[in-house]
């Protein structure tokens, strides 16, 4: 890839030590770029400073605030701001990459404080919200400093166009496709089985929809079994399931990356009944890469990820009847099921980090044209001078 090694700064808006899609995306990207020989520094809020990887700098303890229907661990305030400026000054970056610069966290602060080649990535997809329109006049002058913006999906891009009136290049989230490519069939999970991975207690993951669809499926496919992987309290969920159906459910708890590949390769169908709140659907990309036949709700993120039904089957979101029809249809037609899974597996290679990171680096290169590196913005330099602080 690169002939010249660059100094790249990445800002993560959410607490590094809490699991999340944005965090793992940044971790994989940073590690990929480091392997390519670049110098990478990630600035992120963190609860514990000790266990951080070498390339992560802590910006302080995150604050939990309710945001967009979930709890977001973000960070702002004067101390965080001064750390951001310090990081920018010390880093002498050629380019900085800000994730989610439109939410109140350190990415926004960095965007405000810096000047020079900047790239922003927008992950979230949200419905039209009045509040975003109210803050848009304040956000726009800051966001417009970004030389290039990336959206992780068509849904995220639409959100951006709608709320902040600006366009973005779509570069999907990355997966390590090679980890999933060669999952082996495990007889525990093969046959007429349904797989589900995720924090099943969260209503937006839609396990309820699958539970509601199961009675009809069980009538048509008597040996149907459901395997659920992911952290959570399975007792509480089982209690709400009809006693005659309970024996069909198996909770596997959290599974390892290695088991995940086998699991996805083995199950008859992988089901994602999410009711919303998804922007990309990384698990679907992984399922496709492993060769699973996918059935997903037709929320915008999944609809675009699955190519409007070309690489997986879509059902009407929050409609258990439609889900059960689609599942029965596919389980009774192994030929069609295999065909769609084959197509999906081939298509999922596009999400491999080798492809995705190259695209992101292309965007960096474009933002860096003629640039002389990232500096503090002139306002901040003037302010420092006024206070008698030297920026070096």
């Amino acid at each position, binding site marked *: 890839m690169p002939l010249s090694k660059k100094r790249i700064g990445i800002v993560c808006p959410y607490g590094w030590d809490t699991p999340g899609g944005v965090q793992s995306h940044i971790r994989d990207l940073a590690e990929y770029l480091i392997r390519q020989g670049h110098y990478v520094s990630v600035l992120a809020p963190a609860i514990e400073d000790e266990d951080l990887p070498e390339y992560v700098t802590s910006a302080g303890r995150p604050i939990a605030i309710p945001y967009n229907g979930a709890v977001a661990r973000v960070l702002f305030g004067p101390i965080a701001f001064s750390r951001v400026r310090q990081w920018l000054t010390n880093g002498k970056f050629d380019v900085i990459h800000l994730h989610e610069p439109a939410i109140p966290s350190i990415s926004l602060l960095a965007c405000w404080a810096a000047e020079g*080649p900047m790239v922003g990535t927008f992950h979230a997809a949200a419905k039209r919200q009045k509040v975003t329109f109210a803050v848009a006049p304040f956000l726009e002058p800051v966001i*417009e*400093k970004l*030389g290039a913006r990336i959206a992780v999906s068509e849904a995220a891009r639409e959100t951006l166009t709608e709320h902040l009136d600006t366009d973005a290049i779509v570069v999907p989230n990355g997966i390590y496709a090679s980890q999933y490519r060669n999952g082996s069939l495990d007889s525990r999970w093969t046959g007429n089985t349904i797989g589900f991975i995720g924090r099943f207690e969260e209503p937006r993951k839609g396990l309820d929809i699958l539970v509601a669809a199961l009675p009809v499926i069980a009538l048509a496919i008597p040996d149907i079994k459901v395997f659920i992987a992911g952290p959570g309290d399975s007792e509480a969920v089982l209690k709400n399931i009809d006693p005659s159906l309970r024996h069909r459910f198996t909770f596997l708890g959290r599974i390892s990356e290695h088991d995940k590949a086998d699991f996805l390769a083995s199950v008859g169908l992988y089901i994602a009944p999410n009711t919303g709140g998804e922007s990309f659907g990384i698990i679907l990309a992984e399922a496709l890469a492993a060769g699973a036949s996918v059935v997903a709700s037709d929320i915008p993120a999944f609809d675009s990820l699955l190519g409007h039904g070309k690489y997986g089957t879509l059902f009407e979101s929050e409609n258990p009847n439609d889900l059960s029809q689609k599942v029965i249809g596919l389980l009774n037609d192994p030929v069609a099921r295999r065909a769609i899974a084959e197509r999906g597996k081939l298509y999922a290679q596009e999400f491999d980090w080798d492809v995705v990171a190259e695209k992101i680096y*292309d*965007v960096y290169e*474009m933002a860096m*044209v003629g640039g002389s590196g990232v500096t503090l913005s002139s306002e901040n330099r003037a302010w420092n001078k006024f206070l008698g602080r030297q920026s070096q």
Partner: protein
Amino acid sequence: MKYLSAIFFIALAAWYLSYSATRLDRLHTRVETSWANLDGLLQRRAAIAIEIARSEISDPASSLLLTFAAHQAREASVRDRSQAETGLSGALGILLASSDEVTGANEKDLLRELAELTEKIRMAISMHVDAVTRTQLVRRKWINRVFRLAGTAPLPVTYEFEADIL
């Protein structure tokens, strides 16, 4: 008290003016960067087009057409640039439509390079168009027009590019 509030108001107005000017200046820089980027990529494409014209991929007739289009794209003024580049896209498109039977390793390399470049040009166009639209939008604001904060910087023009025939 009256003086104090007057001073405060003047200071605020001065700050806002300088802030708006900085904002505009940044946007103009962004337009220049994205244009430099797009221009560089398009120049490279023209160079590749000429190489393709000289290679075994193209027959004499399409060679002629391609060379002509590439030179036109290179020499076009800013005003005629997009039309010339669209012409080159068209010429390349005709050639690529029949490029399935290309065999030589060198030729395959050329075509792969062209495909990669096309992808980058697509991104560069979207970045440039966004920068231009934003700048035009901000320049239309009354404060920037009344106080001539843009100075002598020319109003950036939208680059019309037929992305679909790239």
